[in-house]
């Protein structure tokens, strides 16, 4: 009981402190391909993939990304790019798989993770899984909440 009171006092002090000081928005460095693939030859393959996509050559882009994966298998960004590619190719199921894998490897960055959940939501929605899409969108919203608070 005494322990409970001590904890309540501590919590009250913490809340008071928060009320007196302006809300400090936690700034998270944005996740980028350069940051994720820095120092890896996968970066140049990723850039080739982007170029191939801009020229409408999705097969070549996919091959570049698959090669990049062998060099940087833990780079969430590459899976995200593959998810996006599969979505644009009409392969929503594949896109969902890659987006979920990107999430598994994602760095602790709310905006980036929220973006990935949005990708999952779109992929699920295109497969007719509206309930799953809603759940994914909720996850994205939750991640965005602290930033907008």
């Amino acid at each position: 009981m005494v322990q409970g009171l001590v904890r309540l006092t501590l919590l009250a002090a913490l809340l008071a402190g928060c009320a007196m000081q302006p809300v400090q928005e936690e700034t998270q460095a944005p996740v980028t391909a350069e940051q994720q693939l820095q120092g890896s030859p996968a970066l140049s393959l990723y850039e080739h993939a982007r170029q191939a996509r801009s020229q409408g050559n999705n097969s070549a882009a996919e091959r570049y990304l698959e090669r990049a994966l062998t060099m940087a298998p833990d780079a969430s960004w590459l899976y995200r790019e593959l998810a996006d590619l599969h979505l644009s190719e009409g392969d929503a199921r594949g896109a969902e798989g890659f987006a979920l894998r990107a999430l598994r490897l994602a760095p602790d960055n709310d905006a980036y993770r929220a973006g990935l959940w949005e990708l999952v939501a779109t992929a699920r929605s295109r497969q007719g899984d509206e309930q799953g899409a809603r759940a994914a969108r909720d996850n994205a919203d939750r991640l965005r909440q602290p930033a907008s608070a």
Partner: protein
Amino acid sequence: MAKKAKKSPAKGRRQSSSKKSAPRRWFSWRLVGKLSLVMLVVVAAGMAYLDALVRERFDSHVWQLPARVYARPVELYAGRVLSREDMLKLLDLMRYRHTSSASTPGSYARNGNTLVLDTRGFKDSDGGEPSQRIRLTLSAGHIQSIKASQTGNLARLEPLQIGSIHPQHQEDRVLVRLDQVPPLLVDMLVATEDRSFYEHHGISLRGLSRAMLANIKAGGLVQGGSTLTQQLVKNFWLTSERTLSRKLMEMPMALLLELHYSKQQILEAYLNEVYLGQDGNRAIHGMGLGAQFFFGRPLDELEPHQLATLVALLKGPSWYDPRRHPKRAMERRNTVLKVAVKEGALSEQDYRKYSARPLEVVPRGASALYAFPAFIDLVRRQLARDYPPEVLSREGLHIHSTLDVLAQLASERALHDRLQHIDPKENKHLNGAVVVVSPTEGDVLALVSNRHSRESGFNRALDALRPIGSLAKPAVVLAAMEEPKKYSLATNVEDGPVEVKMPNGSLWAPGNYDKQSLGAMPIVDVLAHSRNQATARLGLDVGLDKVADTMKTLGVQRKIPLYPSILLGSLELTPFEVAMMYQPLATGGFSTRLRSITDVLDKGGKPLARYPVSTEEAVDAGPAFVTQWAMQQVIEEGTGRGARKQLPEELKIAGKTGTSDDFRDAWFAGFSANHLAVVWVGRDDNHNTGLTGATGALPVWTELMAKLPQRSLSQTPPAGVDWVWMDENGRQQSAEGCHGARRIPMLEASIPQDSNGCGTVKDTGKGVVKWFKGLFD
């Protein structure tokens, strides 16, 4: 005389009509005239027919080009694990020539740790790689630096051809354009086979009379006197029989061919069509394939004495076969070189140099084309789903496969060496199979189906259907971990006698390998030490249907009978299917279709089809992570600890041993972050081998994994999993340093509220809730 003769037939006719008794004259100019006309019409029609035949066939001729299968191209970049020995092994397999300057494609120079390569280039769905010069420094088992003349700090070696897809009695060839053919080859060909090729119109009267003379002398057909054009006609349209009728057809067709097509076109067709030998059921056609078949290199990389060997073969591919009759082939080769000197195509100096060189033919078995029959079998099966046989045998498709040559060689070596060690005289009749997969992409990197890997036949990796034994146990643990409120890796399960009464009245009562029951133990130890009774109890508690569902989720496609024996691996799978089942366990729950092909390109290198990486979340992150961690304990302290003899302590790897009843099958399936390997050892007649997974399969697995670059499995738990110090009873938290406390990854829902009171309990996600709860206590 002519006049008289002219009148005679008319008179004769009149006479014959008026005087019936007068004898008929057989000769009539009119008849001759008519017959000549008929003959002319027949000849003209025949020529028109032959003309149409020649043009139609030549214009629309489709070379029979079997699909070619290539290994994965080797990526070169700084930091890549690649020893100098492995790099040299690759260059040797690809028949790179060791020279002082590496100035032509397919050659390399070596100076200490630095290699300079001149690559051959290739096409791929991403455009491929140019032929370029690469400077590479290798040290301490890595590529230290790389500079490629065109692609900078990243380059690929052209992929090694590992096979071709052709049915029985099939022609095989590598098409070459005339401008790719070394001029010396053409000069030698013309000089030895048809000196007046550029002058005649398809037939050489001089050649013909020379042949006739030789035939009269010999009293039979010994020489054809055919020009190159006639030889082409014979190969293209006619049979190889030496008959007069064939000869009569051959000549007008040769004339017609020369009438319609240039000497260059005829020469190019000849160079691609000519028959050079037999390789089992495969007929070797054309100089392009001849170069590959006899010298292991592209035609444009051959030296004069090698080109001369190919020309020498034309006189009799079997008689002058340089592998079977090297002396004869050498004599003929030097004759060809001498003729080349006579015709001014080769200098005297070069003649002396090249006629002194050995034949330099590669041994037939040394070609990579025959090296990997089990893997080619897998590619063939995957291709057969998408392409009809005629397309595969004719259209010259380029199949880019996933085979990693170094992983394949390491797997073959490990299986061979370990089985030689256990069964040196082969009187135990042990054999085995290995499947190596890259878990992230699902690429099949290696496939071995025989301890003598070059022997084709029964593909044990794909077709040996065997009980998987304890390889089934991770599925039981995973099924339990999917119910975190009920189980965690710390949950104690009784390792004691279990009995299940079967519907037929029999009793299922499994025993442990050591014939002992060890009492209550945490699930992590049940798996690590492969306890049968405890696993059976756990599986029965979780439910057979749930375990079977988990196996299906992991990728088992066969029907799983709901007998309790499936908990201990009565289910039969092939080594390849085991790799499929273990793949999601290796990737933290993502299921990826295993592929042996990445791309299919047409004969010109244009992309036709992709076989992309696919992935889907099959198992939730939490249960997948804790199950994988439990499998790591198999290596750390369980039945797989023998792996540590060769693999470094700091490398985090996971796996499971498997042994079927009566020691019939020895299995090990395990993985690092970048290689999943499944090893099976057993006998084809299914008899007792006396081996367990740990003594039969694990040594093979360890040896091959030790030869490949490995990355550790991640120890960072996903969201919803925490590291917790658990009491040995599995129901309470404990703390570091407390008696029997173990740090175990726990799903949040499985973390107990209570502590055993020892030490300070670390706050976990659940602990925070507990903290808030304490506010109101």
